[in-house]
């Protein structure tokens, strides 16, 4: 599971940090692992194309590498395309078979980005509990 590419993204995460004035920010966690990820997104003037994405977080190599890889993919994606991302899309990015018990680590970053976009669009209650992908 720990191919060089995953270790590289874990040790040198891409787009790691915060944006100056993001259109939306969202945080989520996996309580049992202690994985926490914050996603920040800038939208283009059309209000739906992702112009920039940054993340910060703390967690296992799978969750951090997946968030790093996702942050690269998000650039230029529309919020509808983000919403359509499925678990397989994330594991394809990782390029490895993620064992069943680790899937929740892999999809945390995607879930945080999707929930953040939905809250921004008024489709999800911002006062709802923070994103939890625990199953």
């Amino acid at each position, binding site marked *: *599971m*720990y191919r060089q590419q995953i*270790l590289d993204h*874990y*040790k040198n995460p891409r787009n790691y940090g915060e944006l100056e004035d993001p259109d939306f920010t969202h945080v989520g966690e996996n*309580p*049992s*692992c*202690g*994985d926490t990820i914050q996603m920040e997104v800038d939208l283009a003037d059309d209000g739906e194309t992702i112009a920039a994405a940054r993340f910060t977080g*703390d*967690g*296992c*190599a*799978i969750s951090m590498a997946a968030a790093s890889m996702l942050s690269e993919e998000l650039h230029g994606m529309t919020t509808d395309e983000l919403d359509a991302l499925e678990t397989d899309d994330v594991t394809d990015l990782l390029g490895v078979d993620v*064992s*069943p018990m*680790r899937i929740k*680590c892999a999809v945390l970053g995607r879930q945080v980005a999707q929930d953040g976009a939905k809250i921004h669009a008024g489709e999800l209650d911002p006062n709802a509990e923070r994103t939890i992908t625990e199953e």
Partner: protein
Amino acid sequence: MEAPEQYPFDVAALRADFPILERSVGGDPTTPGEGPDDDVDLVYLDNAATSHTPDPVVETIADYYRTYNSNVHRGIHQLSQEASVAYEEAHDTVADFIGAAGREEVIFTKNTTEAMNLVAYAWGLETLGPEDNVVLTEMEHHASLVTWQQIGARTGADVRYIEVESDGTLDMDDAAAKIDDDTAMVSVVHISNTLGTVNPISELASMTHEHDGLIFADGAQSVPNRPVDVADLDVDFFAFSGHKMCGPTGIGVLYGRQALLESMQPYLYGGEMIRKVTFEESTWEDLPWKFEAGTPSIAQGIGLAAAIEYIESIGLERIEAHEELLAEYAHEQLSDLDGVEIYGPAGDERGGLVAFNVDGVHAHDLSSILNDYGVAVRAGDHCTQPLHDKLGVAASVRASFYVYNTVEEVDVLVEAVTAARDLFA
């Protein structure tokens, strides 16, 4: 430390009773059992979560289903009588095993958690009020911690925690301060499932009783691997689970002093636990059946008795010596590795488990890599989230040993931990 040459019993011969130890892993985890892609020897070090079941116990359970499967306490027919006698005698076996006065003090539950909830509901909800306090420790398993937390919230009782010192032992001065005249219950883990700390139960019991409180010890991690006598410990309640001691899942034990159990109302109502029922009211069966409503886990109860006979045939003192040998060896070998942090007391003062972290490697990543080496460990918070918060870590990896484990298996663990550390360096 040199690898010890002598085990307290013949481990190699004993392993023959556990065919699962011969299987390989590494293949597709979505299909149970060994498959063509399983290519690495299993090294099972997750015994604090659940132990394996030896053939004699499996045979006892299979024999019940094959030859006298029947409901208990209901039929006059022979099969029901055979099942009832075996199921009732299983309570006697447990009573002898833990030093209880008799079967009246031995209630079969689903597991330790249910035993804890039984007392919390049947005694705690009925008895506690805002003037009372319940004393736990910071190293309690969620089975105790969450349960009393909820009972405290419902009754207004103050729930307080005896602090854990940096060496993983209880602060007994803090215990003396927290246990006071308003203490109704002290609920304390006998051996910590995370730190491996062996808590001084009888000392805590005498402190509790001086203040006229009750004490409940959680024996889930102690009963499987050392002689335990509830009279020596002087506890009022005690609980443990069958599946951590060579028995099946679905069976646990609540020990309670007979007078206490008699004073308590039932926790579950229904069949099996009643004596006389009218449209208006009901009366209860004698102990222990009063607390065993509905069809119980019959095969599992009989299986638990077989498991007790199995580990008694090895000898609990010898099992304890074997666990100490492996835990001390693992503690020393892991301590020698740079970047490894071990939680809990030093090697010769702990139960048979070692929880640790490797600097820069998340516990779940470490566990995944260990799995590639065939090594099964627990990774996570081990149902002690507040303790992990205190330790300042989100999760840890825990290796835990049982009767069939060997020094060579500890060596595989250490090799795999070293490889994981180097991969992430």
